[in-house]
Structure formats: structure tokens, C-alpha cells
């Protein structure tokens, strides 16, 4: 290894930076161990590098010593331009997105305000009507059932079990006399000593046509069973009601027959 080669290939600096191959390094050492000039250059190169490093660390604004981003084979200016363009695009996309989002939220807010206004108006109207209703004087006959419009007071008719021969002659013994005004009609059935847990009842017209049927009926403590109908359910005529009791085994047995005549007062 001679000086020309050493200078041309910056061997001194590369040795100092430990960038020579082992063979190159050994070759250079063999030369410089007996070469004061190379030894001096090596010392200077080391001092220069140390000083540059210290200067860069201590004061990064020394001319030409500003730290740069890692190189990836693209010139710094081109890299910076590409980064700036990317940042600009990103910024624009963000701004567009924010504007769209703001408009959307404003629309939603407007709709919510409209809905709120409508609800407030409706509330005010209902509150006003309630107030007016409360201020009206109480009228007689206001005891109507709110659900059906029928008076709360009901007419109760007790029905006895029909014996076998009672159906002939003048017709049913029990009479149900109703007025034209709507009311509740309670048919109170005498169970005549039956003690079933529950009953089912079938109401038929005298012609045999079944009009109404209900199950799971439980008797009162007085051993009677009450069936409630709106008076409008009945027409003038004879009716026939069959009551069946459910035994503990679940089977049904006839508990009694009831017949009655409905008369509607003019």
C-alpha cells in the first residue's frame, strides 16, 4: 500500500472510521506503523472528526452541520418537496372532511330543533285542553265507565237451576227486564251445592244457536257465579245457559242449566 493509493481511496479516514476490511486494515497498519506522515494524518483525521462531532452536538447551527433526515437515496430538496405536497393534500382532505361534517351536524341540529318545537306545541295544546276539562263543572250521570261508556251501576239478576219440566208451558221462570239505556247486566247463577274448582259456561239462544262461551270461571264465597254482560248484548227473547264444572281430574261435568227470558222495556 503506497501513499498514492492511500490518498486516492481515503484510507486514513476509512481506517479511523473502522470501515476497512481486515485485510485492508492489516495492510495499512503495516504501512503506517513506519510512516510518520500517515500517522500524523490519522491523528488529524481523528481530531477533525471528534471536533466536528462535538461542534454538531454542542451547537447544531454551525454552518453545514445541521442535522438532516436519514438519506434514502433521494435528494433532500426533492424529499422535502414531496413531504410538503403530502402534508398539503392531507390538510386539504382534513378541511373538506371537517366542513362536510359540520354541515351534516348543522342539518341534524335544525331537524332536532323543528321536532322539539312541534313537541312543545303539542304539549302546550294538551296541557291547555286538560286545564279546560278540569275547569268544566261535574254533570250528573258522569259515572260512565271510561272504557265502555256504560254506567258503573249494574243490574243483577239471580238465576236458578232449571229442572227438567220447567222448560215447557209459559217459558222460562226467570225474567230479565232491561231498559233501553245501556248498563251492565250481571247474571248471578245459583250453583245449588256444586263445589267444582272452576266452571265454564255456554249461553245460547232458545233456537240453540251458541252466542257466548267462557271458561276458567271461579265461584264467589256465597256459592254463586256471576256473569257480566253489557245490556246491548241481549235482544228480547229466551236464552239458555249451560254451566259445566271441572273436576280435579280435569274433566267437565254438567253442573246445571239455566233459562231466562229477556224483556226490554220500551
Amino acid at each position, binding site marked *: 500500500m503506497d501513499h498514492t493509493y492511500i*490518498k*486516492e481511496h*481515503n484510507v486514513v*479516514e476509512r481506517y479511523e*472510521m473502522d*470501515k476497512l476490511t481486515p485485510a485492508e486494515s*492489516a495492510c495499512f*497498519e*503495516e*504501512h*503506517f*506503523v*513506519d*510512516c*510518520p*506522515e500517515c*500517522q*500524523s*494524518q*490519522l*491523528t*488529524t*483525521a481523528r*481530531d*477533525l*472528526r*471528534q*471536533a*466536528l*462531532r*462535538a*461542534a*454538531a452536538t*454542542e451547537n447544531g447551527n*454551525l*454552518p*453545514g*452541520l445541521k442535522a*438532516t433526515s436519514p*438519506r434514502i437515496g433521494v*435528494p433532500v430538496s426533492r424529499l422535502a418537496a414531496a413531504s410538503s405536497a403530502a402534508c398539503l393534500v392531507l390538510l386539504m382532505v382534513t378541511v373538506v372532511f371537517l366542513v362536510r361534517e359540520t354541515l351534516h351536524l348543522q342539518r341534524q341540529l335544525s331537524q332536532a330543533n323543528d321536532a322539539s318545537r312541534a313537541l312543545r306545541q303539542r304539549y302546550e295544546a294538551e296541557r291547555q285542553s286538560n286545564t279546560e276539562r278540569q275547569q268544566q263543572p261535574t254533570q250528573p250521570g258522569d259515572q260512565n265507565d271510561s272504557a265502555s261508556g256504560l254506567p258503573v251501576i249494574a243490574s243483577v239478576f239471580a238465576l236458578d237451576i232449571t229442572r227438567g219440566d220447567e222448560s215447557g208451558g209459559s217459558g222460562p221462570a226467570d225474567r230479565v227486564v232491561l231498559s233501553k239505556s245501556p248498563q251492565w247486566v250481571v247474571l248471578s247463577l245459583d250453583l245449588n251445592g256444586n263445589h267444582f274448582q272452576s266452571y265454564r259456561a255456554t249461553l245460547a239462544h232458545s233456537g240453540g244457536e251458541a252466542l257466548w262461551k267462557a271458561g276458567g270461571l271461579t265461584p264467589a264465597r256465597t256459592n254463586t257465579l256471576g256473569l257480566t254482560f253489557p245490556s246491548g248484548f241481549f235482544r228480547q227473547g229466551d236464552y239458555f245457559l249451560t254451566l259445566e264444572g271441572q273436576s280435579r281430574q280435569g274433566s267437565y261435568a254438567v253442573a246445571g242449566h239455566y233459562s231466562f227470558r229477556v224483556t226490554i222495556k220500551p
Partner: protein
Amino acid sequence: MEMTSVEGPPSRQTGPRELALRIQAGEPAAEAELFERYRRGVSTIVHRMVRDSCIADDLCQDTFRLVLEKVRRGELRDPQKLSGFICNIARYLAIEHLRQPRRTQPLKEPGLSVPDPKLDPLSTLIEREKMRAIRQVLQEMSLARDREVLRRFYLEEEAKESICADLALSSLQFNRVVFRARERFRELYQQGGKRQ
């Protein structure tokens, strides 16, 4: 820390071959010449490997003792290759040292005070002088491109080819920039040393 002052070149009256032959002949002056001639180079090689000045000094002494013994005994087959022989022995001893388990233990006694090398006035002075020199070198560089060459080559340790390709420099231009900076730095540093 090694001082950067440049020593005068040792006398080159004899080449390696003659020097080795004079040592073999038992000439004490030749042995002293060998030591003076190779001391700095051997120290650099050994220090670069062990990274410790005291150990490097010891290994340097061992190297010359071993070299002289071997040369006296005629174990140097080709006297022309004296430099390579010395380098090999220096590297061998440094490697042997690195292979051995550590003979020293760190001090554990909290009461013992060890001088901080950073507070050494001479070291501080030398560092300051280097900083001054490098600042001036950089300020004197009229081209930003030259400063960039220095930064990328010495600090970022980029390959010469890459820097040349990036800055459109020829190898000769690159070498010129590095050479000028290095020489100017040495000049300024030596001037500062003389002023002190």
C-alpha cells in the same frame, strides 16, 4: 489523551532490513532506534484495539520486548518485513489481552474518589482548541457544498461514492475538499497549540 502535535520525522538512515540486521548484530543503538521509529504506530494499533491508554502502554512495552527478543534470536525470517512482523506481534498481544478474563475489578468502595477526566484542565484546553479550529475551518469554507461533504463524510460516515453522486463531485474534487479541510484544521490547531 494523545497530543496532536506533530513530531519531527525519525531518522531514516536505515531501512527495516538494515535495522533488523543491526539488532541481530547486537547493536544497542539499533534497538533504541526501533523503539523510537515504531513506538507511535504500535501504540496507535494497540490503543485502537483495547481502547485503554494504560493497557495500550503496557502492551506496547510487551510488543517491543517480544520483538527484540525474537529479532535477536533470529526468528525474523525476512528482515525486510520487520514492519509487518511488529504489527503482527502487537495485534496478537492485543487480541490475547482481550481474550483473557478481566484482571481488574471496578472500585466498589463509595468513599474512593476517582478524578473526573472531564475536569482535567489540559484536556479541556485541547478540546476548546479543537472546537475553535473546526469553527474556523467551517467558516472559511465558502461553499456550502464543501461543508456538506465534511458533515456527510465525517459525521454521517456516508460512502464517498454516494456523496460524490449526490453532489455531482468527482473523486478528485472530493479528495481535495477533504484534504484541504484536514490540512487547514491541522494548521489552525497547531497554531493554537503554539500560542498556548
